[in-house]
């Protein structure tokens, strides 16, 4: 059985936002909603000033707080650990968005996308435009993963800052990275056991 996770190497991320664009294209996410984002800030003062880039996305927690609060069982965890929202079942109550400590669930008030025909001809099968009144989030590009591909954000990253893989494979690159680099995750005190790790 697989258990998917992602490692983000902060030392490699140069804030190019290719992952953000790829995610938006892949998911046809509505205007104003990005399922992965690069937070950035300036640090220090001239001449020692530099910038910090910090990619964030759904942490696909092992103990996701968004799952038990969902009244319609629209949010589920697959056997491989990917946390998904079923838009057909989602009633749009917003409870999951309030329960997510990482603020990585987005309520779709307006599902208009940037340009007509956006999202057509991309990898994800079927209609992929999220309807209004549901919650959307990163799905680790499960449709690509199921076909043996990497998530879109991982594929396009020019600096190889995002590494996706199977935690249940002891020899996998992701496991080695986590073990060797003292990987850490966000808000560990919340007890959610995130599957997105940071190194670098």
């Amino acid at each position, binding site marked *: 059985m697989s258990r998917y996770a992602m490692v983000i190497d902060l030392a490699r991320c140069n804030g190019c936002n290719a992952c953000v664009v790829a995610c938006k294209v892949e998911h046809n996410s509505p205007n104003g909603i990005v399922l992965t984002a690069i937070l950035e800030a300036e640090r220090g003062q001239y001449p020692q000033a530099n910038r910090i880039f910090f990619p964030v996305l759904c942490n696909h927690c092992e103990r996701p707080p968004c799952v038990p609060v969902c009244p319609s069982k629209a949010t589920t965890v697959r056997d491989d650990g990917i946390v998904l929202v079923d838009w057909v079942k989602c*009633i749009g109550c917003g409870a999951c968005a309030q329960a997510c400590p990482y603020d990585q669930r987005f309520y779709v008030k307006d599902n208009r996308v940037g340009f007509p025909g956006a999202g057509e001809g991309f990898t994800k099968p079927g209609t992929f435009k999220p309807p209004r009144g549901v919650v959307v989030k990163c799905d680790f590009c499960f449709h690509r993963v199921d076909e043996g591909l990497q998530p879109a954000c991982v594929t396009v990253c020019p600096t190889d800052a995002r590494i996706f893989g199977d935690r249940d494979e002891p020899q996998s690159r992701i496991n080695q990275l986590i073990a060797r680099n003292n990987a850490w995750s966000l808000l560990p005190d919340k007890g959610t056991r995130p599957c997105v790790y940071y190194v670098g």
Partner: protein
Amino acid sequence: MSLMNANPLAAAIAGEFGMPIVLRQGTLHFVSGYKLQTLWGFREAAIFTLEGVGATTLAGCLLLGWATGVALGVALIAVAVLLLLSHLGHPAKALLALRNVGRSWISNGTAVIGATTLLGALYVALHGLAGLPAGGGWSQAFAWLLVPAALFILVYPGLVLSASPAIPFWSSGLLPVLSLALGLSSGLCTLLALLPPLGVAGAPVEGLGRWALLSLGALAVCLAVYVAVMLQSVAAAYESAWRLLRREALLFWGGGCGLGLALPALLLALTLGGQGPAAPLLALGAAAKLSGDVALRYAIIKVGLFDPVF
């Protein structure tokens, strides 16, 4: 703030992001540090208030054997349900909310509120159409079912909010207790205001008045304890409590404490002491209490802050 690591870069990021700052990505702004929830607001506060008043009216009138009041309670809960539907992204799929009974408080609430509305309507129908006397043995059977359900509806708003671990100000076992006190006091004040104009024979106005005063006192204690505990709690909860007391002072002090506590208590005391015309004072007290209830619930929802990720 909560990064657990020995990594110097991670520690630097934690230090850098520890202060609330706005991070920009094109036209999109991300706020590090404390972030206010914006999904729920005034509508949810009004729904919670209606549910509380409806549940208290329903239970109180059932115990008093006043069928018209039961009908009013059911109607208030039904209005709350309709407003609740409008809060959903997909109201047509509302029945799907019953799929997670036992785990999700919203599911549990949907089941109990739905069943209460139906049972309450059945009670009213049996009384109105079949002519069964209110207060009889059959009425007691309904009371056994509906009074516990009404108690659940009173604590339900607190349970829904406290199920959000991401918002420490809500994630507290005190919130259901506060919700109970809020709903009970508002419901009793409303009930008292309704009894004189509807001319309910033998209505125990004085006894209910004392209970209403007692519930207002309990609400004051619950509110003080809740805010005091939050001020001693984790940083995000403290920040929320601080915002409640300062930034939302008009809602909290003016609405929640002034209109929702002090004024109704004063008017009730005057009425019980025979210091003025009962009906207008009670009506004014109920109106103040209801607006204060909405204001306080709205303020509590509005100041909900996510724990900082960094």
